[in-house]
Every structure is written in C-alpha cells, then in structure tokens.
C-alpha cells in the first residue's frame, strides 16, 4: 500500500448517533413548514369567515371527527390498506416477470412492451367500473390497484435489467461464469436501484388504484366511505378520509425506502453493515 493510494477516500465507519438524529430532524423542518402553515391559514379562515361545516370544516373539526369516528375510519382504512398492499404485491410479481421477459427477449419486447405502455394511455377511471361487473369487490380492487402500479415497475425493471456495466459481464464471462450466473449475480443486482425507484412510485399509485376501485364499486374502504360521506354532505369525514389516505401513501413509500436501505446498503454506506452477511 502506498501513500498515494491511502490518500484516497478513507471512509467513516461511524453511525449516526443522537446528534445525527437531531440534525436529521432539523433537516425535516423545512418540509413541515409548508403543510403546517397551510393548516394554520385554513384554521384562521375557518375562525374568521365561519363557513358552514359542510362547506369547509376547520382542521380542528376534522381532527375531532377523526378521533370520534376512529373505529369507522380504521375499519375502512384497513380495506384500503389491504387492497393497496395486495395490489402492490401483484404488481411487483407481474411487473418483474414482464420486465425480465421483455429485457431477455427481443420478440417479447416488440410484442408486449407497446401494450404495456398502451395500458396506461386509457384512464384508470374509465376501466375500473368494468372489474366489479365480473369480479367480487376484493379481487376487483386488487386488480385495479395492480393495473396502475405495475407500469412503473415494468419500465424501471426493463431499464434496470439493461443497465449492467458490460465490462462486468465480459469480465465475469472470462472468469468462467455462465450466462445464468452473470444474470443472477450481475444483471439482476444491477437492476435493483432502478427497480426500487419504480417500486416507490408503484407504492403510491397502488393506493390511488385501491381508492378508485372503491369509488366505482365496493362495500368497504376509504374511497367507499368518502363517496358515502360526500352524498351526505359530511365534509369533515371526507377530509378525514383524505388525511388517512395521505398517511397510507406516505407509509407505503417509507416502507419501500426502508426495504431499499436493507437490500442495497452499498448505496448508502461505505462498508458492509454488521447485520448483513454474505
């Protein structure tokens, strides 16, 4: 080892401690400023103008409703969460299978890829009412969520599976690796960063899909509840549903981000974490 080499990056091993957490919290502050300011302004308008509650309930009204109606909201939220998660899982399985096929086969690329794109050209709201005609609410919700969520997974998956550095593949081949080994140990891992980007989008889309399905035909879910509440001018309940949906979307997004950190530690650290072996 030479000094010239040693002078390069000698990375830190340290983990963020309490001070690091405080710094991170401080970085979140600007992001919170906008919604907090918005809610404050909204509350101010509600106090000063005192509109009828069905026209514009105040944030405090909404909070009160969320507390008072918690059981009903949670019951419906569970339906939406289940639909989103199952839809996302189906989208991941189908999307990944399609991406592998399209990236591996020129014929599939030509025959299928254009239709994957076309499937997104039709607004989901126009297609969604068809599903409950043929299926129960559960499966139809799952399919609508999957239909909208699989698209970013296919697109990022195909790009990712083509992104492997050709030098890596060539070098491995000359070291005696077969095509399958190269795919399993180089092509696929190289696709994961892009795939996770797609998965993050899909996580948010799947909630949209689940809610759309609930609007067009369901007997449970936040979309269903919101539609009923709109009909009855229970605007506070509609806002409560919106708050829940936002929270579910953010939670799913966060879940995917967390999974990425566990699966791809090299993107965030300079050394292998202790919890990861092999």
């Amino acid at each position, binding site marked *: *080892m030479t000094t*010239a*080499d040693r002078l*390069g*990056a000698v990375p830190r091993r340290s983990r963020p401690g309490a001070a690091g957490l405080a710094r991170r919290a401080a970085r979140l502050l600007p992001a919170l400023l906008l919604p907090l300011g918005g809610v404050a302004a909204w509350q101010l308008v509600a106090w000063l103008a005192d509109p009828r509650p069905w026209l514009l309930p105040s944030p405090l009204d909404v909070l009160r409703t969320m507390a008072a109606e918690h059981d009903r909201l949670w019951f419906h939220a569970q339906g939406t969460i289940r639909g989103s998660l199952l839809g996302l899982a189906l989208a991941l399985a189908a999307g990944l299978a399609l991406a592998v096929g399209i990236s591996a086969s020129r014929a599939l690329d030509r025959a299928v890829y254009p239709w994957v794109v076309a499937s997104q050209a039709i607004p989901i709201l126009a297609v969604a009412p068809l599903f409950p005609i043929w299926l129960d609410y559960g499966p139809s919700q799952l399919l609508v969520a999957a239909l909208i969520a699989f698209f970013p997974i296919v697109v990022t998956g195909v790009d990712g599976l083509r992104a492997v550095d050709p*030098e890596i593949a*060539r070098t491995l081949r*000359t070291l005696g690796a077969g095509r399958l080994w190269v795919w399993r140990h180089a092509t696929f891992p190289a696709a994961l960063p892009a795939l996770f980007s797609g998965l993050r989008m899909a996580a948010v889309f799947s909630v949209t899909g689940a809610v759309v399905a609930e609007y067009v035909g369901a007997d449970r879910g936040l979309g269903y509840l919101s539609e009923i509440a709109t009909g009855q001018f229970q605007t506070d309940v509609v806002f409560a549903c919106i708050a829940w949906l936002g929270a579910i979307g953010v939670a799913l997004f966060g879940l995917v981000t967390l999974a990425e950190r566990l699966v791809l530690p*090299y993107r965030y650290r300079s050394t292998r974490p202790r919890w990861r072996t092999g």
Partner: protein
Amino acid sequence: MSAPSLEARDLTLSFPGDGEPVQVLGGVSFAVGPGELVALVGRSGCGKSTLLGVLAGLLEPAGGQVLLDGAPAADRLGRLTLMPQRDALMPWRTVADNVAVGALLGGASPDEAARSARAVLRRYGLGGFEEHYPHALSGGMRQRAALARTLLGGRRGWLLDEPFGALDALTRADLVAALEALWAEHRPTVVLVTHDLDEALLLADRVLVLTSRPARVADEVPVRLPRPRGLAASTRPEFARAKARILEALSTGAAA
C-alpha cells in the same frame, strides 16, 4: 494449471459500419510463450480491445484462429481472464466478496473463496478494506482488487486491457511495479494492451506494435532490460532505443 502458450494466427474481423463494413483486424498474427509478458501498443481505436475480446473468446474472428498450447481453441471462453480498464468490480459486493468471485468461479467453495480473498487482499496492501464497498476505494486500490480477483481466478493466462489507463501517474507507477512483482511470482502468460509506451517497456518481454485500423502487427520489439525493472530502468539507453524503435513503427504503421 500451467501457464498456457497463446497464438493468434491471421485474425480478421469486420464490424458493420454505415454502408461499408469497417475492417478492424486485418490479419493479426503473433505468439506468446508460456509465462511470457507481451505488450500490445497502438494508436487509440486501432482495435486493441477488439483483439483482446477475440483472444478471450468473447468475440469470434471472421477469419483466422486462436491457439492455446498449440491447439486451436474455439471453445476458449473462460480460459484466459480479462481485466478491463475500468475495474469492473461489482458495486453491490464488498471488496472481499468481489475478489472472492475469482476463486468462486474457479471452483472454490464459498468459505475457501472468502478465506483466500482475505489472504490475497492483505498480501497486496488492501488489508482493512475487505468490508468496504468499491466506491469507497481510490482508483488505484480498486485496480489492485481487480488484479487480486484475476489472480484468484486461477487461470494462468491474463488479458489486461489498459488496466492502469485511468490512473494518475504516481498511482500508475505503483501498480506497474505491483503487476511486475505479481507476474514474477506467479508467471502467468500475459497480454497487456496499453497506449503508454513507458508502461509497455517497464513490463513487457516483447512489445508488439499494431498498425492503425485494420490492425496488423507492424513490428516486434524485444525489451532486454534486467528485472525487476523499476522506474530506474527508464533511464537506461536500451530503454530509449526500444522506445525510439516503437515510435518509428507507430508512425509508419499509421501511414500504412
């Protein structure tokens, strides 16, 4: 495994261009003895990397043959190990896991591979960096790791494609010395492609000068300098004479 002898016999290859195909290899012939280190120099774009691809078995030549140990070797992919200019380490594997790939593909068990990776990293100055990901290492350290992976692959024929081309001068000098030591110890058969004449003369037993596209061997310059050479060798008159002859061949080769 003993170091193989390698022979290129009248290799030709063209790539489809706009309209007319571009001839890249125009009948390349040369031989490398077992344990010999031969450098290939030529202007950029003369087809050196393509030639290495053909030797490795990643590309099939349109005409001619590659012989290993005197026998035509159509099925040679995996017998000569390539080491590219960019280290081709896998970013998602730690340095130790990257190096272990060589041993794994050479048939070692995972445990054995991990053990030998650690040993070779310590030996070649990367001790303490086993658990780092490649992006945390300097370019020189990464190329050392790539050399270690090549070594653990167990093949005794190496094709080095401008392995130090992306490094700064000081780091490159270190790695040239490291490669000479490694070669002296293990005596693999090496084909080293480079555009750096000093690097070629410091390392090679013979320097083959390639013409511009289509590539042919324009001249063959033996380098009679005692080993280990070190940077001091570049001040010797033999060094200067060999360099002048290579430059001469390069300029006439370009006109041809």
